[in-house]
């Protein structure tokens, strides 16, 4: 969707734009991967990828260490790379966890200090060390710290490039409660053959109901 030039909401979060021609085009391209290239609709295990069973599959950053630890014989035979750019933009989707402080918090200062510590040089270094000791890749909230992960240079370079163009979920109030229903609408395209325009119209209705 982003690569096709579309977005879920307008920039000021006042309008749902999930039915724009750009989003329709991007979604049609995405859905065609399942029908034309037999991409598995379920999230596969890393061993299937290692065995060369898929041309494309979705997963997460844990697969870096999954491959390194589970399939040492493949060392040097794989690497990550940014997604090819689309007609309008380059970039990938980037997820993660959100931390915030509630307005009703009894200790907003302490809470904010904790969040700061996660972003600090010391905090990032401590988390990276602990993760590396446990053979787990932890992607720091500061993308300039990717170079300090325990990945090899090729993967570090790819991740750095990916982070430069990646986009996260929309920062619009109402997205969180609407997102499960949007996912159901997208599933209906792949699993039930619902036309893309129809599914996105349904998604728009759900998103407008929660837009604040």
């Amino acid at each position: 969707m982003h690569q096709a030039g579309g977005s879920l909401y307008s920039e000021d979060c006042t309008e749902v734009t999930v039915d724009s021609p750009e989003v329709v085009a991007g979604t049609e391209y995405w859905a065609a991967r399942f029908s034309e290239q037999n991409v598995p609709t379920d999230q596969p295990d890393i061993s299937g990828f290692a065995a060369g069973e898929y041309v494309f599959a979705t997963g997460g950053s844990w697969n870096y260490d999954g491959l390194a630890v589970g399939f040492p014989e493949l060392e040097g035979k794989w690497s990550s790379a940014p997604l090819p750019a689309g007609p309008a933009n380059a970039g990938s989707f980037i997820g993660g966890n959100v931390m915030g402080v509630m307005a009703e918090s009894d200790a907003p200062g302490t809470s904010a200090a904790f969040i700061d510590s996660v972003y600090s040089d010391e905090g990032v270094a401590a988390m990276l060390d602990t993760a590396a000791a446990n053979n787990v890749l932890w992607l720091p909230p500061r993308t300039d710290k990717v170079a300090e992960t325990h990945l090899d240079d090729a993967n570090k370079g790819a991740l750095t490039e990916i982070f430069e163009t990646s986009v996260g979920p929309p920062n619009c109030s109402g997205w969180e409660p609407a997102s499960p229903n949007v996912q159901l609408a997208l599933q209906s395209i792949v699993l039930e053959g619902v036309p893309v325009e129809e599914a996105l119209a349904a998604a728009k209705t759900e998103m407008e109901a929660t837009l604040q």
Partner: protein
Amino acid sequence: MTATQTAAPDAPARRGRPSHRLQRYGPAYAMLLPFALLFAVFLIYPLIRSIYYSLTDFNAIRPPAFVGFDNFAELILRDDRFHKAIANTVKYVIGSVVLTMVLGLLLAISFKSTSLRDRLLRTVFFLPSVSAGVGVVLVWKWIFMVDSWGLANTVSRFFGGGNHSWLADPAVSIPILVTMAVWGGAGYAMVLFVAGINAIPDELYEQASIDGASKARQFWHITLPLLRPVLVFVFITSTIGAFQVFEPVYLLWRRSASIVGGPLDSALTIVPYLYDMGFNRFQLGYASAIAWILFAIIFLVTLVQLRVTKTFKEFDR
């Protein structure tokens, strides 16, 4: 008679003396007190509190505001996901309870004796009931993995089929849940049925044999009627348990924080939906309303089952 007459006038006096009652029942109450306190704090109070929350818009952050029966009206009249969860739950309950009872009964009839073979096989079939629930579900998840090493796909390829995304196919979500429930519950039902069958006097079967009744006739006219209390018990407990199914749905299909019901909500049942509303979206008032609707459904179904059983008993007389 004489003893009763002389003892009777003294009894109320003894019962009414507070010091005597305290001496007699005090230790018992004292020993019950820790449980009673925990029961009141962790069960009774939350139950009462959840009734209150079900009438509010409580979201765990802001203080709850009273909304009357809005949550119930929304659930019953307008919430399509809840309606889907109800439909899925009913399909699951019917499939799992009926098949568990039929298979449990067949196993009980087949392996009811005290021979070494029957005892061993009863142990084998009972094992799933005492296996760790989460571990068992993870094994099932492995069986239905989309990768070629998933057992279901291995079997599929052995018979000339291809790899299938079992857990991403809405058509097989409920059958997968039912299969897991029957596999895990039939052994437990079997043990109860074996106990019930072995309590039926042998003389009844001997008399029926002398009268020329076939094995099938003996089963329909002796075993089943005399097994009815056990059948009712297994039926009610299995039904209540099936309505509350949660772990398999959560462990097999949870792919992200916001999706708990599988592809197209095909595996969404009532309790996972309650979890989704309460702990993913923090609509705790709404989730409390779901919990009380689930309670009402189970209560009504159990009442109907007991009523039907009573009718059968009266009919037998």
